């Protein structure tokens, strides 16, 4: 408790490039950038593979690779290769980490739509793209969002590790804290990371509430 009050009560922690607002902003930047890039890659790919049924092997390989690749190792490798002049040595491993859950869940979501439903959609005279956009995506949306949420949580957690490379983010409080035996900083930084992850979770729940049709989530509105 003393550490917490010590950390959050110190006005020096609230300003400057090493302050909480600046570190938080860096953390948000890294995580958001990595997630958006991963989403731009994985969602269209997952939709395409799920809709056409071609390239399913890619999904399997990516799912397995993601378990086999150590994120920390990747991070160190990219930093050694690219240096720390830019943020890319951090972003690239984060994207690689974020792609598989989105890809797998988007693919499974589209693939898992009841074949009768596809049949009905084509039988009504919808074209391929319309079947995907108007039927498959809305019905698969809960799974697509699940993939995004899993990736987001992982990215937020792993961005902490980015501090190893000397780049910013909330992980700096933890890692620098350990280095200087400043345990108030370690505990305070951890709390911030956990809170941030929670906010992301809540954010996704809200997105899910507003974008998924009540007919799909089967939330019956009382009337």
């Amino acid at each position, binding site marked *: 408790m003393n550490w917490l009050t010590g950390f959050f009560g110190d006005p020096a922690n609230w300003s400057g490039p090493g302050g909480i607002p600046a570190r938080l902003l860096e953390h948000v930047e890294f995580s958001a950038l990595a997630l958006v890039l991963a989403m731009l890659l994985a969602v269209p790919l997952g939709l395409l593979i799920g809709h056409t049924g071609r390239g399913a092997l890619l999904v399997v390989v990516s799912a397995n690779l993601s378990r086999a690749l150590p994120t920390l190792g990747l991070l160190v490798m990219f930093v050694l290769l690219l240096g720390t002049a830019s943020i890319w040595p951090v972003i690239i491993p984060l994207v690689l980490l974020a792609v598989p859950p989105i890809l797998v869940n988007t693919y499974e979501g589209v693939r898992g739509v*009841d074949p*009768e*439903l596809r*049949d*009905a*959609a*084509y*039988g*009504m*005279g*919808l*074209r391929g793209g*319309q079947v995907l956009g108007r*039927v498959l995506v*809305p*019905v698969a949306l809960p799974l697509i969002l699940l993939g995004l949420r899993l990736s987001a949580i992982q990215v937020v957690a792993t961005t902490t590790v980015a501090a190893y490379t000397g780049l910013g983010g909330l992980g700096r409080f933890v890692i620098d804290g350990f280095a200087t035996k400043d345990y108030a900083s370690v505990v305070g930084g951890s709390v911030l990371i956990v809170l941030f992850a929670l906010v992301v979770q809540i954010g996704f729940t809200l997105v899910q509430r507003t974008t998924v*049709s*009540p*007919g*799909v989530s*089967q939330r*019956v509105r009382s009337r």
Partner: protein
Amino acid sequence: MITFDSVTKRYPDGTVAVDHLSLEAPTGEVTVFVGPSGCGKTTSLRMINRMIDATEGEILLDGRPVREIDPPTLRRGIGYVIQQAGLFPHKKIVDNIATVPHLLGWDRGKARARAMELLERVGLDPAMGERYPFQLSGGQQQRVGVARALAADPPVLLMDEPFSAVDPIVRTSLQDELLRLQAELNKTIVFVTHDIDEAIKLGDRVAVLRVGGRLAQLADPKTLLSEPADDFVREFLGRDRGIRRLQFVSTEGLRLRTDLTVPEGYEGGRSEPWLLVVTKDGRPLGWIAGDGRGGPEPYGTFRPGQDSMRAALDAALLSPSGCAVAVDEEGKVAGVATREALDAALAEAADA
């Protein structure tokens, strides 16, 4: 009119699903494809709207080969109803029904009005329009499926075992509803089922297909029952062929007796073995023995001219007197068909 001209569907592995099928589904009539599983009935249906493409031969829609028409365009002009309804779960019922009108670019208001009209037409409460499919029962979903197929008023309707996933009571009401709708709309309907009773009830013409996709017989239901083409058709029609044929014998000419009724409170005195007790407002109450003893016994009714001989016979078998009670539209007694009258009518039917 839909014309199958020597249509064959052969899959790459050599399996033949449909083998040189030639038949016509006339405009404004219900043509039923019936047969055991593997007879190619669904494949044949799906070749009409090009969900499957024929390997050989030609399917013509009012003289125009369907293979020349872009599939989505073709399908928007053909209503399609499938077994599990296949409603879009994320859309409200009203938007489900308006699917094809939306695709055809109808004005939103017009599409909505049409959807509401159709909801009522298929016997659903318009308030259901605002619900989602999961909030409806299987039978209700199937009605919505029919409404959706009818939305853009297509001249042709394809129905692929639409009623086979609902319970028998709901199925009967859906079948009756379809017959009622068809009497109003006069669509060209191709209907697939594995249930021969359904085929006979709904079809103007029934095509019996055998395994391997060959046509065994194409006939109207009455002819099918009285003159099955071969042993396969005979076996497929099942045991009660004779009884079912009575469905097509009218009760119009059935001789009715009006002297077998007595008012409530009858205490005996007539020599007939059984008499029908009728209430003051003319409704049947039950059979009573001629000597007036015993309570009213159960009875069965039919509507002469409307119901078939099968219904009249059924009504007769329900009562101890062996007579069927003829009632009018309001359920009032019009007369009694005695065993002798029924016997005469059956003899006539057997000769026909």
